[in-house]
């Protein structure tokens, strides 16, 4: 008997008393009534708690804000689909690498790059979570991982309050990364400290009117 068949048969034997299959009641909160301002406020509160840097700006100021956040970087990587206008004010002297699945930067390349700029798919204000789904504006998972600074743009229209509101907007079969603050650890005495293997700096640029 193959391992698969044997395990399946063990499971069936174990369940021979036919335990009841309960009906799952989804009585938890699944919709919310928060205004856009409240959503932004809550998201900012959570992100700041995680020690992320947050700017809330009109879309028209996106380019200037991103440029300011990148002021210390000498190089940055962007996914091929990122809105070109967002990068308009980054000084020409800052080296830009454009990454795509077709023309991927190597891991060594990425390690030599200071920062990454990406968009995001959906954000959950209640938990301060930003979800990237690997689409063209967010890019391959490696680019938002290896550089030490992540500048992430969140259009306010993509913010929801609750996780149950976010999931229907997502395709779970795309490679997803949920980000709630910069990398952190609680492994020493269960006290949280920020900054381990993932980006140590997370800059979130919330576009209040986009």
């Amino acid at each position: 008997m193959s391992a698969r068949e044997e395990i399946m048969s063990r499971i069936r034997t174990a369940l021979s008393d036919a335990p009841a299959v309960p009906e799952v009641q989804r009585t938890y909160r699944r919709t919310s009534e928060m205004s856009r301002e409240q959503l932004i406020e809550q998201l900012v509160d959570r992100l700041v708690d995680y020690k992320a840097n947050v700017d809330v700006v009109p879309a028209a100021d996106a380019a200037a804000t991103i440029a300011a956040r990148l002021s210390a970087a000498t190089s940055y990587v962007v996914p091929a689909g990122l809105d070109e206008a967002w990068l308009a004010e980054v000084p020409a002297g800052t080296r830009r690498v454009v990454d795509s699945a077709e023309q991927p930067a190597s891991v060594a390349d990425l390690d030599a790059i200071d920062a990454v700029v990406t968009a995001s798919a959906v954000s959950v204000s209640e938990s301060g979570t930003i979800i990237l789904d690997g689409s063209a504006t967010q890019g391959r998972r490696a680019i938002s991982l290896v550089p030490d600074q992540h500048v992430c743009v969140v259009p306010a229209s993509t913010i929801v309050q609750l996780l149950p509101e976010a999931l229907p907007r997502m395709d779970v079969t795309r490679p997803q990364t949920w980000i709630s603050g910069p990398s952190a650890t609680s492994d020493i005495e269960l006290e949280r400290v920020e900054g381990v293997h993932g980006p140590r700096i997370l800059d979130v640029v919330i576009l209040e009117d986009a």
Partner: protein
Amino acid sequence: MSSTFVGMPTLPSQRGHGNLHAEEPFPQAATRELGNTQLRANLRHATHTIRDKRLNVVGELPDWEDLRQAGSDTKDAVMADLPAKLEEFEANFTARGGVVHWARDAEEANRIVTDLVRETGSEEVVKVKSMATQEIGLNEHLEEQGIAAFETDLAELIVQLGDDKPSHILVPAIHKNRTEVRDIFLQEMPEVDPALTDNPAELAMAARAHLRKKFLGAKVAISGANFALADTGTLGVVESEGNGRMCLTLPETLITVMGIEKVLPTAQDLEVFMQLLPRSSTGERMNPYTSLWTGVTEGDGPQNVHIVLLDNGRTNALADKYGRTALNCIRCSACMNVCPVYERTGGHAYGSTYPGPIGAILSPLMTGIEAEDNGSLPYASSLCGACYDACPVKINIPDILVHLRGEDVKAQHEASRVPTEMDVLMKGAEIALSSGKVLNLMEKALPLGRLVAGRDKKIKKLPGKLAGAWTSSRDIPAPPAQSFRDWWKKEGRA
């Protein structure tokens, strides 16, 4: 740790193998650990920190109890329909380019993983913290096979570098304080700055520097998974440091080892479990990073993706109708963080990979109550119920502990006809307490106790191992001159 494998072939094949047993009677192990005052101070500090954090973030959600109920019901439903859910997951994961393997036990899983690593030609692997691979002793096995496994989670790294054993499922080095961690780093990391302080942020930086090259050059990663979604074939890992993302993203080959009980029916279920898990485990609203992957995504991440679905005694637990909900565990560690026994003994006293209240039921359920010293585990609880209250999927751990005590008594009586001291005590109490008349007669002897008590009206020492254990640290007041029952009768009342 590999010594626990000795003698395993004599166990029935359905039982789990590996690092899953109490290795000595719990009271004995606990007494030793209790004597370590540094350990006690470390544990007390850590568990109390996390308790407060958890209460805060749980209290924030008005629908916490609804989420718990949904989580519990979802898990019950999966377990009742497990073959279909596993088949569905397998079909979806395979359709997207992943390869599914099945392992009956620890040895089989270790063999499968070793072969997969060999096929890549790599002689080293990076690892994301995984309870399943700890349970099967994968690192030790790989080492025997000439493959080096590097733990990348900070706490796992501390344990690995310190040649230690994990003592907690979420924070395996919870028994070490910052100074001890610094000392390990200074000794084991050749490149580390000798001026390293014990500031946790600095220690985290040292770990970053130590592992950076490993991540960037790794060809093979081995992970566990927090859940598998049947309807999409998706796997998920919940983490904090980014070491998980490194392992799940950069290498060419990714091998995941996951217990068969981790499957969830639908992607929608994430909305429940991703609220329950982070708040219950690290006491955060959300953990810093969660990664989801579904088979292979062209051009993004590992292109050679495998999963090993592990039984290793899980079907044994599933067959126990009073104990099977232990498989609902999502390994958040809330139960051990709130447990007054764990707080004082730490995880090593439980022997198994799974310590604390959940370990006290899971180990015997997976590997048998009579295996090694498993029989002592269900008694490692005062049945205070704090674990049940904290458990995000509402596993009634106290009831299962009591059930397993019954199994232990049964097993002991089958193994030996000689009554134990506890048997004698229980038999005596049964006779006394099964009838008001008999109890009344026994109570007539209460004044005798007053004689034993002596002048200060305290009984300070009783004979026997069990009663003697009580009076080792507690006085017993002298009994009253007459029982209530007696008084009631003498008052002439009905």
